C-alpha cells in the first residue's frame, strides 16, 4: 500500500484538503477535556495529545441514539428513521488502541448475519485515520492485550510522527483512496520506514506496567466461585466510569419515550456496573451486589470475549485505570488473579 511523507508544517494543508471533501472529527481541547469533535479548521486539531478523555466510539455507537420517531397523524401511524449523514466522514488522529476497539465493536454490531444498519452505515461512511503513539502513558497496556502503540488494526490510514515529517500509510483500500487524494507530499522510502521502526521500538520500550493476560480465560473459568470476588468490589462505588469510558464496552438499553400521539425509541449506553442493568420486572436481580457485577465485567472482557474471539475484550487504553474514582486498577486485579492461580498450581 502507498505510504507518503507529509512535512509537519504541511499537515494543516492536508487537514484543510480533508475538510473540503469530508466532515472531519478530531481530538480537540474542550475545556478540561480532550474530546473528539467535528472540526472546521486545522488549528483546532490536537496532534500531540496523550489520549482523549472519552473514547471515540460514540461516533459509531452514540451514547444517546434515536432509532425512530413515531406520530399519529389523522389516525395513521407515521414512523420516521433518522437520516444518515449526507457527507463522508473522516475520524482523524485516533490512537491505535481506540482504532483497534472499532474492530471489536464490529464483531457485535456488524458481524454478517447480525448487522445493525445504523452502526454499519456510520462505519462505512467513515475513514479512520490512526495516529501512532510515540510515548505511551504509564497507565497504557495495549501491548499486554494484543495491540501495540503502532498497531494499524482498525485504522484505514496510519499517521506516524517521524520528527520532521509525518509518515502517512494506507492500510486498507478505503485508506488508499484517502492517501491518493493527498497532494504535495513525497513518497516514503526505506529510510522513513526505518525511522518508523525505530520510533516503534522506542515506544515499546517505555511500557512500565506490562501485565500477563495469556490464558486468562482459562484461569477465570476456574474462578466463578472463588472467594476472590467477595472483597474485590468492596471499594467500588458502582458508577459507570469504567464502562462508559471503555472503548470496547458496547452494552445498551432500549427505551421508548413519548405519549400515544408521538414519541421516540432510544438506544442508550448501559453499564453492567449499574444494578438496574440486570433488574428484572419481578424485582429480582440476578446480580444483586458489586460482587456479581465486578465478576461479570471482568469475565466478559477476559473470559467470555476471549472464548468467543480468541483475544481479550480490552485494548489497554487505560481510561478505566486513570479515571476510576476509587483507583481500582484492572491491571492490579489481573495481576492478582495471575498470582492466585499460581498459588493453586
Amino acid at each position, binding site marked *: 500500500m502507498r505510504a507518503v511523507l507529509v512535512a509537519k508544517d504541511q499537515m494543516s494543508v492536508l487537514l484543510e484538503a480533508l475538510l473540503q471533501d469530508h466532515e472531519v472529527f478530531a481530538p480537540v481541547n474542550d*475545556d478540561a*477535556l480532550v474530546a473528539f469533535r467535528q472540526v472546521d479548521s486545522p488549528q483546532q486539531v490536537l496532534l500531540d495529545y496523550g489520549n482523549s478523555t472519552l473514547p471515540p466510539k460514540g461516533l459509531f455507537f452514540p451514547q444517546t441514539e434515536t432509532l425512530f420517531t413515531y406520530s399519529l397523524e389523522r389516525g395513521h401511524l407515521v414512523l420516521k428513521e433518522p437520516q444518515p449523514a449526507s457527507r463522508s466522514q473522516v475520524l482523524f488522529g485516533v490512537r491505535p488502541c481506540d482504532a483497534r476497539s472499532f474492530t471489536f465493536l464490529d464483531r457485535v454490531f456488524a458481524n454478517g448475519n447480525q448487522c445493525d444498519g445504523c452502526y454499519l452505515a456510520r462505519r462505512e461512511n467513515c475513514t479512520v485515520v490512526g495516529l501512532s503513539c510515540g510515548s505511551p502513558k*504509564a497507565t497504557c497496556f495495549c501491548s499486554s492485550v494484543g495491540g501495540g502503540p503502532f498497531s494499524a488494526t482498525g485504522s484505514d490510514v496510519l499517521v506516524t510522527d517521524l520528527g520532521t515529517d509525518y509518515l502517512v500509510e494506507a492500510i486498507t483500500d478505503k485508506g488508499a483512496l484517502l492517501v491518493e487524494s493527498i497532494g504535495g507530499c513525497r513518497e516514503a522510502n526505506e529510510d522513513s520506514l526505518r525511522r518508523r521502526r525505530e520510533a516503534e521500538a522506542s515506544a515499546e520500550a517505555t511500557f512500565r506496567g506490562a501485565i500477563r493476560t495469556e490464558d486468562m480465560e482459562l484461569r477465570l473459568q476456574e474462578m466463578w466461585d472463588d472467594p476472590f470476588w467477595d472483597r474485590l468490589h468492596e471499594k467500588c462505588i*458502582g*458508577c*459507570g466510569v469504567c464502562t*462508559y469510558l471503555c472503548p470496547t464496552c458496547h452494552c445498551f438499553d432500549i427505551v421508548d419515550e413519548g405519549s400515544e400521539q408521538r414519541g421516540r425509541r432510544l438506544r442508550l449506553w448501559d453499564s453492567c456496573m449499574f444494578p438496574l442493568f440486570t433488574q428484572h420486572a419481578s424485582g429480582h436481580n440476578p446480580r444483586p451486589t458489586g460482587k456479581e457485577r465486578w465478576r461479570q465485567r471482568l469475565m466478559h472482557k477476559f473470559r467470555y470475549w476471549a472464548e468467543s474471539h480468541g483475544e481479550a475484550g480490552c485494548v489497554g487504553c487505560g481510561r478505566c485505570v486513570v479515571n476510576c*474514582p*476509587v483507583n481500582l486498577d484492572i491491571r492490579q486485579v489481573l495481576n492478582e488473579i495471575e498470582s492466585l492461580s499460581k498459588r493453586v498450581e
Partner: protein
Amino acid sequence: MTDLSPAIRDAARRLLSDGLVDVVIGFEAGPIPLRSSPCFARDAAEVERLVWNMSCENNLAKYLPRRRERVGVIAKGCDTRSIVGLLREGQIERERLHIIGVPCRGLIDRRRIESELAGREAIDVQEREGEILLRGDGFAIALEKERYLHASCRACRSPTPVIYDTLIGDPVAKDMAADEYATVREFEALPTGERWQFFAAQASRCIRCYACRNACPLCYCTECFVDSTQPRWLSPSTDATDALVFQIMRVMHTAGRCVDCGACERACPVGLDLRLLTKKVEKDVEELFHYKAGLDVHEPMPLSTFSPDDPGDFIR
C-alpha cells in the same frame, strides 16, 4: 510535617486486636502516582497497607450506611461532617462506629498537576512542607502545594474533625475570615443568560455515569429517582435537558445536607464544575436558616423542621 501513616496504622491495629471493630476503612497507596485508594483492613497484615497523604480524596463516609460490621473509619474534617449528617438522618449507629479523626491539610487536584506537567508523567511524588516534589523521566520539579489544592479544600472551614473517638495529628487552623462563597457571589452577579449558558454547557458534557452521585455519602437511597422506571421520572438520555435536570435534582436533594467535601467533583471523569450549584444551595440554606450541615448531631435539619419564623416570602 510528620507522616501520620504509622500512627494511623497503630490505631487501626489496636482497634482490630482489641476486638472493638471488624474492619477499618482507610486509604492505601494507589497503583498510580498522585492517587490513593480506599482500603478495607480486617487483620494486622492488611493494616500495613494503610497510608495517609494529600491524595486521600474519597469521602469514606460513603461506605458507612447499611454496613453490618462494626467499623473503624479514618475521617478527614469533611468526612466527619458527612458522618454527623448520616447519624442525624439515622443511617448509621454511633455505637457501631469508631471514628479515627485526622486533621486535613488539604487534598491536591491531580488533574491540575497533570495539566501543569503538559504530557510529562510523574513517576515519583513526595510531599514536603508546603511543596509537592514530582519526578519523572528527565525532570524533577517542586510545586507549591497550596496552589494545587482542590477548590473545596481551599474553601474548607472544617479541616479538623468535628466528631471523633481518636484524633491523630494536630488540629489544622483555618482562615475563617476568608469568604467561602466568593465564587458563588461572582457567579450570582452574572446576567441570567450567561449563567444559563454556563450550566447548559456543563450539562452537555455530562455522560450520566453517576460517579458524582455514587461518590456522595448523602446518596444512600435504595432507589435513586433516575433509576426508577415505574414511573420513569427522568429520561436516561444524555440530551442536555435531561442531564441538567439530573444535576439540578441531585443538588436539590443535598440542600441543607451537603458539607462541600467535593467528592462529587473529584469523581467526575469529564471535569464538570459540580460544586458551584451545591455551594449556592449551601449558601442559600445558611442565609435563610442560619444552618450549616454536619456540625452538630443534635441540631434539627432545616428542611425537615418547621418553625413559624422560617422565611416564607416566596409563598405569595
